[in-house]
């Protein structure tokens, strides 16, 4: 049976809609119920969290989880819609360890916050970077300069005038 439909049967109140995302069953769910559904999804044998994608649609954020089950050889896509003003969602780090970094990356580049993440800080960009680049309203006209501090940590500044002092 289609795992998206299965989830809809189990949580009729939480699933907004089901569908197909190019040959993968997809379920759009309410953000409050992500953790409960995720637990069920894990129980259903979806042991591989393949990808977390955050997309900025200007009026809303969508966050998409791609699951795969090694045992059943099935795909499942979970989609959650978030408010544009307050993009926050529960962390799946406790269920899939890979979510640790995938969520950090999503936080870093898209700016979606994950509640309950043990170490939610930037991963690809240095700490102190201004803005989240993959947001559509990211200001690309501001130059940001990264230098290496005394202890090896990165220092970000928008002022590049003192970089050529030597």
């Amino acid at each position, binding site marked *: 049976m289609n795992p998206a439909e299965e989830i809809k049967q189990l949580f009729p109140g939480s699933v907004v809609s089901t569908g197909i995302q190019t040959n993968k069953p997809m379920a759009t769910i309410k953000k409050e119920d992500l953790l409960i559904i995720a637990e069920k999804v894990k129980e259903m044998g979806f042991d591989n969290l*393949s990808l977390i*994608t955050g997309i900025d649609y200007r009026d809303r954020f969508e966050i998409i989880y791609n699951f795969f089950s090694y045992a059943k050889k099935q795909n499942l896509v979970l989609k959650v819609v978030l408010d544009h003003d307050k993009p926050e969602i529960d962390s799946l780090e406790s269920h899939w360890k890979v979510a640790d970094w995938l969520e950090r990356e999503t936080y870093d580049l898209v700016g979606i916050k994950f509640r309950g993440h043990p170490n939610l800080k930037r991963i690809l960009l240095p700490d102190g970077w201004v803005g989240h680049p993959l947001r559509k309203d990211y200001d690309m006209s501001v130059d940001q300069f990264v230098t290496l501090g005394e202890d090896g940590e990165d220092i970000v500044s928008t002022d590049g005038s003192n970089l050529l002092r030597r």
Partner: protein
Amino acid sequence: MKTEELLINMGPVHPSTHGVLRFKLTMDGEIIKKCEIVMGYLHRGTEKLGEMKTYLQFVPYTDRLDYISAFPNNYAYVKAVEELAGIEVPLRAEYIRVLTLELNRIVNHLVMIGSLLLDLGGSTMIMWGFRERENALQLFEMLCGARMTFNYIRPGGVREDLPEGFMPKLNEFIKDMEHRIDDYEELISGNEIFMMRMKNIGVLSAEDAISHGMTGPSLRGHGVNYDIRKIEPYSVYPDLDFRACVRNECDSFARYMVRIDEMRESLHILRQVVDAMPEGKPASQAKYGIAPLTGAPTAVSTYFPRIFTPPPGEVYSRIEAPKGELGFYVVSDGTIKPYRIKIRSPSFCNLTAIPKMVEGLMIPDLIAAFGTIDVVLGDVDR
């Protein structure tokens, strides 16, 4: 006995971090207590760049992700776009693609084994590996003029047909490679010191490995029989005879052996591809979306149009790249540019397993385990 902890900063400039990765190691003497990975030194904002290019223009950027094996990157992206836009690809183009993919798999594993041995202190294997890699790179050069960043596979097919004299050279390469792999095994696999360094090092149970998102050869070293070419067949792989190489030991040695087996398997696939290579066009000529905008049609315009508009929608498409599951999540809003591109890079996800893998081991073991994970920093940082 209570001892003072030592904080060692390994990288970003260090001989065996394969680029610019930084390990923050909390050490107790020689034992690693905690390993924290810092990255992003090679972050080029590829995903952001993708939003500003047309679908075709983004293909060269994918080359720069995993520069050791660029064909799979090309292909993974192009496959996503083709699924999104519903582009049909001629059979010959698919065969040429599989040919490049498998050739590139061999190249990738040669580099991986070479640099693994180099990290362990054996300098010979990388030279031997590069000797054979050179032959393969010359084949790539014949194919598309580039040796590492190809920009060869594009929506609708491949850029050019196989050049004259390519097949004989390929056959020569395949024949040469067969006994070269035996040579490598003689040099490395049975070596007592190599076994001491690899066996029971970097052990991670299959469950942990899956939970940490490990994929590809690294995961198949943990006894998980999983190969996207098998379970979600794409291209012409269903027509080809091959097996997923699996080892059950869950340690560094198993992950290394999977690579050796895969090289043999790739040669096997290559032989079939050479035999089955069909005649025909190397690229689709279908009309789709907006035709070329300005200027007189050039010779290239007989190929699939350069500018096209897939219908609004989103697709997640993944392939079995040499390093693991390489996926592209492409969102179209119906314009000539993708709305969002998300890259699921195998190196990034495989790397999450390292801190857990090396806890309680030593720096030399960290290097051995890290070498078998096979990470390219261009792929991690994107």
